[in-house]
């Protein structure tokens, strides 16, 4: 069984948000309710001000604090390393949203970010929040794995495109969009990323490209001190001198 993980090379990321829109369309997200997002920051003053950005999917932690706090066990860790939500069990209590250190969980029953509200323009049926005219084929709806159009009253999150990667051939080390027979199994954000700043593969396979990148370019994890142990690694700089993360063992 694979342990899926993502590597994001910050030296290559252009901050374009193609990951965000690819995710939004693939997962029928409400406008601005971005499972995958790019956060922008700045510091300093003109003429030497600094603009930065940070691409952020769900970290699919090894020790997810969201899972620990969920009172109904709706949110859970899968055998292949994903953190998912069973929408049949979720009661929308939002404990997980408070427990998550990364802000990557979404409860979207309130006021829309963009008006007019698309939910009024493309109304959904039953508990479906809306029905976008470009929505995914109906047979993709999979509430057990939190896949499909988010119903009202539940929390949702990035699934690493579970509906794609769960169909990937068993035993592959990496899901690389440049390999024609694998591209349909690659998460949307990885597949779309124009500068190819994203890589997706098996963290349990020492021969995977993602593990080699983490090793060669000194991959780090966000807020590593929380002990959540994200399965998303960031590459930056690649110098030998670096801040050791919790994955590092003293030599």
């Amino acid at each position, binding site marked *: 069984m694979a342990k899926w993980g993502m590597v994001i090379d910050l030296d290559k990321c*252009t901050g374009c948000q193609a990951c*965000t829109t690819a995710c939004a369309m693939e997962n029928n997200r409400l406008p601005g309710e971005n499972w995958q997002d790019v956060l922008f*920051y*700045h510091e300093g003053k003109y003429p030497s001000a600094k603009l*930065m950005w940070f691409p952020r999917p769900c970290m699919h932690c090894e020790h997810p604090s969201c899972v620990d706090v969920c009172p109904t066990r709706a949110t859970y860790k899968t055998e292949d390393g994903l953190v998912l939500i069973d929408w049949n069990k979720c009661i929308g209590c939002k404990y997980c949203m408070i427990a998550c250190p990364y*802000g990557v969980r979404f409860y979207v029953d309130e006021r829309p970010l963009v008006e007019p509200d*698309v939910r009024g323009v493309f109304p959904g049926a039953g508990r479906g929040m809306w029905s976008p005219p*470009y929505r995914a*084929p109906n047979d993709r709806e999979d509430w057990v794995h939190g896949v499909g159009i988010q119903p009202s009253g539940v929390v949702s999150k990035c699934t690493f495109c579970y509906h794609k990667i769960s169909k990937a051939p068993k035993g592959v080390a990496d899901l690389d969009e440049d390999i024609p027979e694998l591209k349909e199994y690659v998460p949307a954000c990885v597949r779309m990323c124009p500068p190819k700043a994203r890589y997706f593969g098996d963290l349990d396979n020492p021969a995977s490209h993602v593990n080699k990148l983490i090793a060669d370019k000194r991959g780090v994890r966000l807020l590593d001190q929380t002990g959540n142990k994200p399965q998303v690694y960031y590459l930056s700089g690649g110098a030998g001198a670096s801040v050791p993360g919790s994955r590092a063992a003293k030599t």
Partner: protein
Amino acid sequence: MSIADDIKLSRRRFLQASGAAGALGIGLNKFPGFVTLTEAKAAPPPAGAGATVITKSICHQCPARCGIDVYTTDGRVHAIYGSSEHPISNGKLCPKGPLGAYILYDPDRFKGPMKRTNPKKGREEDPKFVPISWDEALDTVAGRLNNLRAKGESHRFALLFGRGWGASCAGQLGPFGELYGSPNVPIGHSSICSDGSVVAKQCLDGNASYSAYDYRNANYLLIVGAGFLEAFRPYNNNMQVWGYLRGEKVPKTKITAVDVHLNTTLAASDRALLIKPGTDGALALAIAHVILTEGLWDRAFVGDFRDGVNRFKTGQTVDPAGFDEKWVRGLIEWWNIELKNRTPKWAAEVTTLAERDIVETAREFGGTRPAIALFERGAHTHSNGIYNGMAIHTLNALVGSLFAKGGLMYQMGPPYGPMPVKADDYKDEYAKNGPWKKFPRVDLKGHEDGYLLAKNMLQEVARNHLAGKPYKLDTVMFYLTNPVFSAPNAPQWEEMLKEVFVIDTSPFPGETAWMADLVLPDHTYLERLQDAPTYPFQGFPMTQLRVPAVKPLYDTKYFGDTLIEIGKRMKGPMGQYYKALNNSENVVRHLAKGFEKELGDNGVNGFESWKAKGVWYKKPYHWRQIGGEFYEWDGRGYNRRMTPAEVKDKLLKTESGKFEIRSGKLEHEAAWIARMTGRDPKRLMFPQWEEPKYTGGGDLHFVTPKTAMHAEGRGANLPTAIALFQPTVGGHGAKGALAEIHPSAAKARGIRDGDRIRIKSALGGIEAYARVTELTRPDTVVLPFEYGHWAHGRWATAQARGKGGAHVDTVVVNQSDRVTGMANYYTAKVTVEKA
């Protein structure tokens, strides 16, 4: 704000009963009557779980023409990814690409042809459109055109177009004008697009074109005012290249970027230079000065002093007789007349940049091969744009990058087959010698009273029409352009459109449609069959085919067919021509016959294979300059050495066959240029510093860039694009366009972050929300131009937030570069106050 703070904030969003962003996002839907033209709620296509079909097509959300794989299941488009087999896409897309499915299903799009029933026109006048049949619509247009022709007034019909794609749409417009008899069919939008670079390059190397670039082999990029990671085409491929240059490439390519605010391009570069608007040419002149004084120029391409001793010393003239020029003309004269005193110290004062940064940039650019200097609108949409552009492009000559590996070149065209019929065979006496022949174009393009050297002057149409000089138009048709929103001094277009019969062909309810008498809606792009030769890319010939992923959802018609159907209704041989042409698919099929002899690298050899793969291309580019000599591809390599005559014919297309720093083209028209501009006829042919003529009368520069989410005019009505519109300054989640203003400028005016502000020029005022930021120059206000729509769909008008909406071209004065014809979009100065 730290990362941790921001995460806490977003985590807390669920606690907000009503977010501030949401409250700001509520807009007045100003024209409910307009919206009722369409169904209030869109009916989604049938559901299903059948087989998924992938159609190979091309995107339509910028000029780049990326190959797309359109995923359709049971007739419903539900995903768009980049085509892996397409040379531009390589499986990737920019952030706009995936949103294309939304454009197809836009609930505000027109459902069929309509005519206006309210004779009054204006922003506040509901057109009261009623549906009509295509026959009635086409007969109405043909009737008007036949009547004008019968009266000898055919010149009073104009067809204005913007994003022309290929031979089956824009390519048909020229023959239509010649057969019908109007100098105004067509008038392209290039002068409100980017002619500043096209004409600057034409003046220097004879190629009136954007450049193709070999970035992957370049070791240095100097990017001036081009928004390489936001707007410069092909955006998607630029980012692929960026990832390679900054990731895998050995050695890593160093990049300096120049702009007026800190955008993602500048932030991702090695050096960001925040330059005073309109002074980019001064920076380029100083870089050239350093390249020459420090002996960094490429001797194999440029030439050298006969004795090999560098005599370029600051402030000292040089004897031209002592220098042998190779592929440039006029270098020593340029030095003597302009460059010798253009030091980094001088440029630092003009540009406000640090002298140290200018010198370092110059040494890196001059000392790294291959190096590319590229520029676009930021540098040339000013009164001095021709010179800014020429100064920057000349840097490419100085370092020998023209047609070199890792340099820049020009795009080859596709080997299309001939059209089914020849327009020349269908010209009647009127077409050949009718009264229309004596009329100039209404925009006075190519006329000595107007813009003799320009390619188009679309921005002059409204002004000239209103003045009746050279004459008044009667009927105006629009294809993929919306100058009533996007031209400088846009309100002038509202006045013009009130006076003429307006035919719009957009599928979307834009401002032009709001002023239209007749709407003949096009298919949206996922419904079209349409050819599109590549924009300048990597030089090798390539042409794409837009292939319908679904049958048209509504009663719309591809513009190419609308034109043919109008043509069939014209009297005389013109009607016969269009009957023989038959339809646009017939045109495309004939184009594809050219591939029978020129098999594409991907096996495309005719119409069916082109349609299956969506692209024909054939590598490589045919020419290369190596070490100061030019070679042609012989089938195996760049082996065949070219003669100077061949170089002149194919590559350096100037009178001298050289890169003319002393521009023969400008010299030829020196008397006219001097008369129109007051420039010195003895030196106006050289790249030089000239103070820009700022317009508008204010104290802050006003710059209105394109953002990554622009989507060729549709971004403002795409909810997901709205939510991601201006991320660098926190325009996340439907705050709409924010006016970036520096803290010092804001404080001096009593403006705080988030305040509603009024931006005024001599033309009037608009309102926007202030984002007080250190990312923008203290003397400049930046407001992206996508917002402020007073039509264009329910989300677009909601973002405009009422009458004071941020329609930037309300306050941008209509001034153009007299040589290039480029509208001076970024040269306005405004006053800013709290609203």
